């Protein structure tokens, strides 16, 4: 019989989403912040983003060949990692360092564990942390915002967050913080653009608003309890970027609803502890990475009960 009937398991309908489609939605959500970074820090931002993306794609392409695995660059996850990594770097970073960050993020944090869906920490954050440890001076040189296209003036003074934590008076208004007119990593400063991107992701049902809201809310409440200005805290540093785009990464965050809330609260607590009591100015990267490591435990502890089950069975796996 020519062209026999196709037989597959049920269901025979699909919602139409693909992994590539999800990644594309994330890239669209990141574009307002990318545009803002060019407006604020000049064309150098675009160069950093391009270099990061290119090195991530190349790293993934080559590592899949070396590991003899099917090629996965088409699912655009390497592009997303590249953009997120770039957003965590200052616009003045030497491009070769940015490239190294991309390679570390993809090869060490992702491909060595099996690729998409198998990593246990956020690759972009690993890239950033490795660069921070390897090139601390370059990673702390912030471009003065709004210098125009040829902005080359950089400053090594403290970011608003550092000033506030040390108890000083910072001279940026809340509006300036909201729009991003402050020194900082190229993608983290424009809160407005990040929130727009976040709303897009929520409307497209790519992320649920739970983690960002709980994370930011925890930071707000904790900093207020500790006597600091909560508004400055949530508008400064990498919190918006981290809460909306990094703490919602599928692979490295809990899969069930209760787990997500526990994860977000943990991220919030650690962020504030590191910011206020730790010797580092920014706690978001480390907070998220530490919570990433705890995700398997969180998932086990917050596993939902199957329908109708009344009590938790012992010795569950």
């Amino acid at each position, binding site marked *: 019989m020519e062209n026999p009937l196709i037989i*597959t398991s*049920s*269901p*025979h309908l*699909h919602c139409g*989403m693909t992994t590539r489609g999800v990644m594309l939605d994330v890239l669209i959500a990141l574009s307002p912040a990318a545009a803002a970074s060019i407006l604020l820090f000049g064309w150098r931002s675009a160069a950093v983003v391009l270099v990061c993306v290119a090195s991530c794609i190349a790293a993934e392409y080559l590592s899949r060949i070396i590991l003899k695995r099917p090629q996965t660059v088409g699912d655009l996850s390497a592009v997303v990692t590249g953009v997120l990594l770039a957003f965590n770097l200052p616009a003045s970073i030497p491009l070769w360092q940015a490239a190294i960050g991309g390679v570390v993020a993809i090869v060490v944090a992702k491909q060595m564990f099996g690729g998409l869906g198998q990593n246990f920490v956020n690759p972009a954050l690993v890239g950033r942390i490795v660069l921070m440890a390897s090139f601390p001076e370059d990673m702390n040189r912030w471009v003065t915002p709004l210098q125009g296209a040829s902005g080359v003036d950089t400053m090594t003074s403290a970011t608003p967050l550092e000033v506030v934590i040390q108890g000083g008076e910072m001279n940026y208004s809340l509006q300036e913080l909201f729009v991003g007119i402050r020194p900082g990593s190229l993608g983290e400063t424009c809160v407005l653009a990040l929130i727009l991107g976040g709303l897009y992701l929520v409307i497209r049902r790519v992320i649920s608003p739970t983690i960002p809201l709980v994370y930011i809310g925890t930071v707000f409440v904790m900093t207020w309890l500790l006597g600091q200005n909560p508004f400055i805290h949530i508008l400064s540093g990498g919190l918006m970027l981290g809460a909306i785009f990094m703490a919602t990464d599928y*692979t490295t965050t809990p899969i069930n609803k209760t787990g997500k809330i526990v994860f977000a609260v943990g991220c919030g607590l650690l962020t504030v502890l590191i910011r206020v009591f730790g010797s580092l100015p920014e706690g978001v990267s480390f907070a998220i990475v530490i919570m990433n490591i705890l995700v398997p435990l969180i998932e086990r502890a917050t596993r*939902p009960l199957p329908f*109708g089950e009344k009590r938790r069975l012992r010795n569950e796996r």
Partner: protein
Amino acid sequence: MDITNIKEWVSLRTKGGVHAPHRKHTADCETVVMPPPERIILAMSQHIGVPCKPVVKVGDYVEVGQVVADSDQPVSAPIHSGVSGKVAAMTELLLPGGLKTAALMIESDGEQRIHESVKPPVVENYDDFIKAVRASGLVGLGGAGFPAHIKLQPRNFDAVDTVIVNAAECEPYITSDYRECMENSWDIVSGVQTLMEFLDTARVIIAVEKNKPAAISELSRIAAEVTRAGHEVIVKPLPARYPQGAEKVLIQACTGRRVPPGKLPSDVGCIVMNVASVAFLSRYLKTGMPLVDKRVTVDGSAISRPKNVRVIIGTPIHEVISFCGGTKFKTRKLLMGGPMMGLALMNDELPVLKQNNAILALSEEDIQLTEPSTCIRCGRCVSACPMNLVPPSIAAAYQNKDTNAMEKLGVMTCMECGCCTYSCPAHRQIVQTMRMGKGDVRKAAAAKAEATSTAKAENQPAKQAVTAGK
């Protein structure tokens, strides 16, 4: 919708599910009766439970409504002929699940002579009622095919206080239950009254999805006429979200009660029956004609003239499709049932079975053959699962062949509704994995049971040897 308190409102809210496209193209198609085919093929296994054995021989002359196959086991239901004619042969059928079953082929003589046993049954008490239900050959017409007379004899008879009539029809395309509501609403309500009487329940809830407003108002109108003190018939509109009509989900949405894993609806005091089954019961008690035909929705992008058809059980599917104008595009997938839980058929020669309430012929545009890719742990399957399961964990346990873990994660509670696979961006075949996992769990349980019984048997001869003084 009256909510008396927050707690009750919360208990009625069901989780999970997906918004599958409705595609109810045939909703306004009045049911067309298909003339008897030249021959019908009656499978011996058209229900959950023990297959029947034929009670007629090749060469016998049978008439409409005559019992042609039966079983002496409890979980079974007799099979009747829908045509009059000669029993031509005993054949074998390959069912879509891969099981083989014997089948009777009956050649119609075109006369549709009715057998003398077809007369309204005398039903004076509960036992008569159960005997009549069994004799009618009724099995769940919603697609599950569970023998109705067993369902209507719950162990805890006195604890059953609610009968739920399932008119939700949450699967895309299928409109046969909707047409039952629009064309035979009096049969439904009279069937409901019969159930209330013999099951001694005070409350009947007719559950309908909100995308069927005409059915809701029609049923509400009649229900209001028969409701009286102590015998409530309520029509409950439910959100149109797949799988609203799934038994456990439906019971929770109507009563707030959750059926524990491994238990039956009667364990929470409910009996759920499909609306077409209820209507059939009422017609059977009035006319005595057993289950020989049923309404089937024929739809799909390949069908020329989709419609609802009343077909005689045993009619080959390709004849039903021809009756609907044949196919206008090449059929790439032929489904028995809805697109979410239906079975893909190997060919169109299979006859219409009692459990078949839809025939869907899908053309190229509806086929999605994307290669599965790696799980990205997005959690959509977890949000979509109406049974609160975590499919990636079960899949991991399946890979590790860990049947204990799969059981504890609730794989046996999976009802294979397909919500997980529908939502998966990586196009993973999650339902298939669940089915394989369930198979492994059952095999492990069977192996364990056999091991314990062998161990017991081995202990016996030892005792006998001792007492014999060996």
